[in-house]
């Protein structure tokens, strides 16, 4: 779960990390609670807001209303802006970059800092990687003072105590809340003390059960700020029950594994077809879920043909067949369905399909060819 900026800053502030004073703005009326000058920042879950022009400093109240209107009507990388933060401007001397994350190449938590904080940090990382300083934190002993002193020295920080305090708090939030990334960029340095000017926090959805209230609250808050209603596919995707990605073509695709799904897409593409979506059921694959998944994929009116690409390992083909048969029984279905079924319990699944009049192939190349041809015909 990616937190919106104001949510991330609230988590930081709760732990005692300084953030600018701010007011959440969802309509121009909210400006009454704002004192000027102020900085308006669109609350969207993507980076690059500065470059997208949705961070604006306002000197006075006069033109504020129209700026707020305009920003609330804009969209950043596909995300409609539904809320803004109006923050007190902070005088900035030095901008640092501070992040704590899991490095998946070495399987260790990693503290990463740079004295070149700010919107160009990705450029810095590419062009002058030596300006990004890293310290791995061995989970067997946790973060130690000397590691922090080492980073402070590299950043030429004078007030090492205050910096250590900040780092220890970030690490504590990371662990207590099951974060996978906490990034403060920029972290402004004195004369204003340390202030987190922007913050990005990712929480681990797989650990949501350990923080149910927090996750529920954050999610409710994000939902409230979204006027747009979500599709069934998005809802199911968010709950982790299916993994659905719309792709814009006309061949629907359901797979029982990510790898088999991806190779199916690649093969459709190579055969000249256009996939309408990627969709895999992962570890949750059972009859009920197959039914629901077909519902979701076929609710897309652009789908001319549906490929179901199954190769059972953990997934049982008898259960998959049961779901498909049930879906066809319950729905008046006109889109042609091409099924590949093999693997665990396919000796039970294939006859079930045949019995209800559906053919199943064993070869992936075959169904891809059939589907692409059908899509072209229709």
């Amino acid at each position, binding site marked *: 779960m990616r937190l919106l900026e104001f949510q991330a800053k609230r988590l930081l502030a709760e732990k005692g990390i300084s953030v600018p004073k701010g007011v959440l703005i969802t309509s121009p009326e909210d400006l009454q609670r704002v004192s000027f000058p102020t900085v308006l920042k669109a609350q969207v879950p993507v980076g690059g807001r500065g470059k997208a022009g949705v961070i604006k400093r306002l000197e006075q109240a006069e033109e504020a209303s129209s700026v707020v209107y305009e920003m609330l009507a804009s969209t950043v990388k596909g995300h409609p802006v539904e809320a803004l933060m109006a923050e007190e401007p902070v005088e900035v001397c030095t901008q640092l970059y501070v992040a704590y994350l899991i490095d998946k190449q070495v399987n260790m938590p990693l503290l990463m800092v740079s004295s070149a904080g700010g919107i160009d940090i990705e450029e810095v990382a590419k062009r002058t990687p030596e300006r990004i300083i890293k310290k791995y934190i061995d989970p067997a002993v946790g973060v130690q003072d000397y590691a922090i002193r080492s980073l402070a020295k590299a950043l030429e920080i004078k007030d090492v105590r205050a910096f250590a305090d900040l780092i220890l708090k970030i690490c504590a939030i990371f662990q207590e809340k099951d974060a996978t990334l906490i990034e403060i960029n920029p972290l402004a340095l004195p004369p204003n003390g340390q202030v987190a000017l922007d913050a990005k926090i990712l929480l681990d959805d797989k650990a949501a059960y350990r923080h149910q209230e927090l996750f529920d609250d954050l999610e409710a808050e994000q939902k409230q700020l979204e006027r747009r209603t979500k599709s069934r596919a998005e809802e199911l995707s968010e709950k982790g029950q299916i993994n659905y990605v719309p792709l814009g073509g006309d061949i629907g695709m359901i797979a029982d594994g990510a790898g088999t799904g*991806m190779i199916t897409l690649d093969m459709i593409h190579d055969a000249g077809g256009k996939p309408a979506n990627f969709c895999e059921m992962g570890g949750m694959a059972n009859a009920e879920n197959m039914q629901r998944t077909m519902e979701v994929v076929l609710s897309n009116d652009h789908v001319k043909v549906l490929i179901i690409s199954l190769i059972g390992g953990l997934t049982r083909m008898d259960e998959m067949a049961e779901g498909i048969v049930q879906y066809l029984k319950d729905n008046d279905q006109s889109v042609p369905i091409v099924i590949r079924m093999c693997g665990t319990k396919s000796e039970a699944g294939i006859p079930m399909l045949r019995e209800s009049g559906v053919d199943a192939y064993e070869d992936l190349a075959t169904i891809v060819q059939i589907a692409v041809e059908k899509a072209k015909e229709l």
Partner: protein
Amino acid sequence: MAILIDENTRVLVQGATGSVGSFQTQIMQEYGTKIVAGVTPGKGGRKLHGILIYDLVEEAVQGQQVDAVISFVPARFAKDAAIEVIGSGIRLLVLTAEGIPEQDVLIVLRYAAIKGATVLGPDTPGVISPGKCKLGVHPHTMFMGGPVGIVSKSGSLSYEVGRVLTKNGVGQSTVVGIGGGPIWGLSQEAVLEMFEKDPETEVIVLLGEVGGRQEHDAARFISQYMNKPVIALIVGRTAPEGAQMGHAGAIIEGEEGTAASKIAALEKAGAMIAKSSLDIPELIKKIGA
């Protein structure tokens, strides 16, 4: 022996009494895997498919050799169960659970490193040495013994490839699923190293996908240390940038995450590139293995 397991491997099944654990235990037994015991807290003393269930790993390992564990324990309890296995001194743990919190996985892997244990997974279909031992959930009729080692992030993709190879009469030495990520115990690179040393493996098929950086490490390893031929298939070539396709590992991460950069790196390292599973038998014939 093949890598990781062979016909003598003595296996403990953790989470053996759940519906998946029970079903897969029976299949593994039928395949010939030497399953010596099961563990499910609170179910100690029962029998399942002829094997005895214990409450605790320490009870199961008492008085008998256990070489490997396959865990069907659900994600929420997987960390505790994994540490129990590693703490008992067992050297190989196959972690099938999907959805284990990342910080839990980190602790398990760190503890495994400390204790010198190998963890395959999480979110892995396991490992199969066709005709010898199956420590996983593979549709094993798709595999047969032979000279090709397969290492794959995706379970289903390894089945696809195994199926095509077997149909074309090309057998496999060992098929290893390292798991869907985003955090891996055993890496592609580590498995490549094992295959390079394994006398029963003549060709290696590396199955990767869009996202993550493992394939770049694998490419470096291939160019520096490998003499055996490697055939690489990277799926998700046609995925749009930024899309998350199933495995959390398949998030595009900078330039190294794209399929194109991985294919380029592997090709440069000397691997043969397959466009789909169908190409692989022919490439193997070309090599003459």
